[in-house]
């Protein structure tokens, strides 16, 4: 049966509709799915119906699956399973801080590389924070001179930032909520200002983080989006 023929348009549309709705009976369903694999017209019809009915799928109230599901997925893919055992904001999760040890190690590896890419006055004993996703190459490097409240942030890698999003830099104080340092550019070099000179402002801040926020940064003063990169505050004494 050639469903793509122009005189069968109506028939194909009805089939695609009942396929997507789910009412197409078993054998017909399997047959249509089989045809769709090679026939682009059939596939386009199905996709159009998926788009039409998509808003409706969004409205069904969400239900949390059992934590076992994530554990089994992680097990099958050989990923660390700890992260989703504790719910709550990411900076309060045990897994986040546990994962941080690994990130810092990688960040340290990236440090030498990053230092060669950032113009740093060699005499000033700067504070350098290399921000990276877990087990990934550095994405941003933040450098601070001891006698200035300015943080220079340079983008050296990481995933592209969508047009309608911004990267926001945070201090992660021990035992307290993240504190925003402001929005940093998605490419090139930017500057943000610390609330005090680095040795004062960062006294209880072992790490910085970058989250993905709505354009212009989180409106609430707390991170809303996912954390993309973290980095330990390294003091080069």
């Amino acid at each position: 049966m050639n469903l793509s023929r122009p005189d069968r348009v109506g028939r194909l549309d009805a089939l695609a509709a009942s396929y997507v709705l789910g009412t197409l009976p078993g054998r017909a369903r399997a047959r249509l799915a089989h045809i769709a694999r090679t026939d682009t017209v059939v596939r386009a019809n199905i996709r159009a119906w998926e788009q039409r009915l998509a808003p409706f799928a969004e409205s069904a109230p969400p239900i949390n699956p059992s934590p076992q599901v994530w554990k089994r997925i992680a097990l099958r893919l050989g990923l660390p399973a700890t992260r989703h055992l504790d719910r709550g904001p990411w900076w309060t999760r045990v897994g986040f801080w546990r994962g941080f040890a690994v990130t810092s190690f990688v960040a340290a590896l990236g440090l030498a590389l990053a230092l060669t890419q950032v113009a740093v006055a060699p005499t000033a004993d700067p504070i350098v924070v290399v921000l990276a996703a877990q087990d990934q190459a550095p994405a941003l490097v933040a450098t601070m001179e001891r006698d200035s409240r300015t943080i220079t942030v340079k983008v050296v890698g990481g995933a592209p930032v969508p047009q309608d999003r911004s990267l926001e830099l945070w201090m992660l104080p021990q035992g307290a909520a993240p504190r925003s340092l402001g929005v940093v550019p998605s490419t090139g070099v930017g500057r943000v200002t610390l609330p005090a000179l680095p040795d004062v402002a960062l006294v209880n801040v072992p790490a910085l983080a970058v989250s993905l926020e709505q354009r212009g940064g989180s409106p609430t003063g707390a991170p809303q989006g996912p954390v993309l990169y973290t980095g330990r505050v390294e003091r080069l004494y």
Partner: protein
Amino acid sequence: MTTPDRSARVAALLSRVAMGDQGAFADFYELTSSHLYGVAVRILKDAAAAEEILQEAYVNVWHHAGSYEVAKSQPMTWLTSIVRNRCLDQLRRREVDTVTLTSDDDDAPEYDVPDDDMTPAEMLLAGAEARSVRDCVDALDAAPKQAIALAFYQGLSHSELATHMRQPLGTVKSWVRRGLERLKDCLDRAGMGR
């Protein structure tokens, strides 16, 4: 979170998952799994089977996130379609098997369906964030609207719809067919169809 917000975040995470970013994959799971599980468990009415489908879907996303084409559909549409299709495949295959092997009542699926505060028809309307979509749903007569909603959210077949709605099979079939046609005409007119 509004739908466009989630959509943008899911798309951003997916692009990082495609590069093998484990943290992004975990965030992605957290952001999408309760939605997808809700869809699956309503259709399959079986928690274990729904979890199984979810597991397969995420394993596939990890391996094939790169094949998602941003230009062609919203990421949540893409994901939801994958999960719904797998659920429906299983459900409809089960029916074929049942017919072939003659059914045994012990095999009746467990009904792990959540008690929703909304009826399927109300969900259908709630899904219509955009005014034009809402108008199109509103324009449907009550019976076709209910039949479409039950099929869409709970995976009921034509004959199950007929039983549920206490109507002849042919009546239910034409409700669904005409209802979908009207919905399509209306959505396409409003420019929401694609």
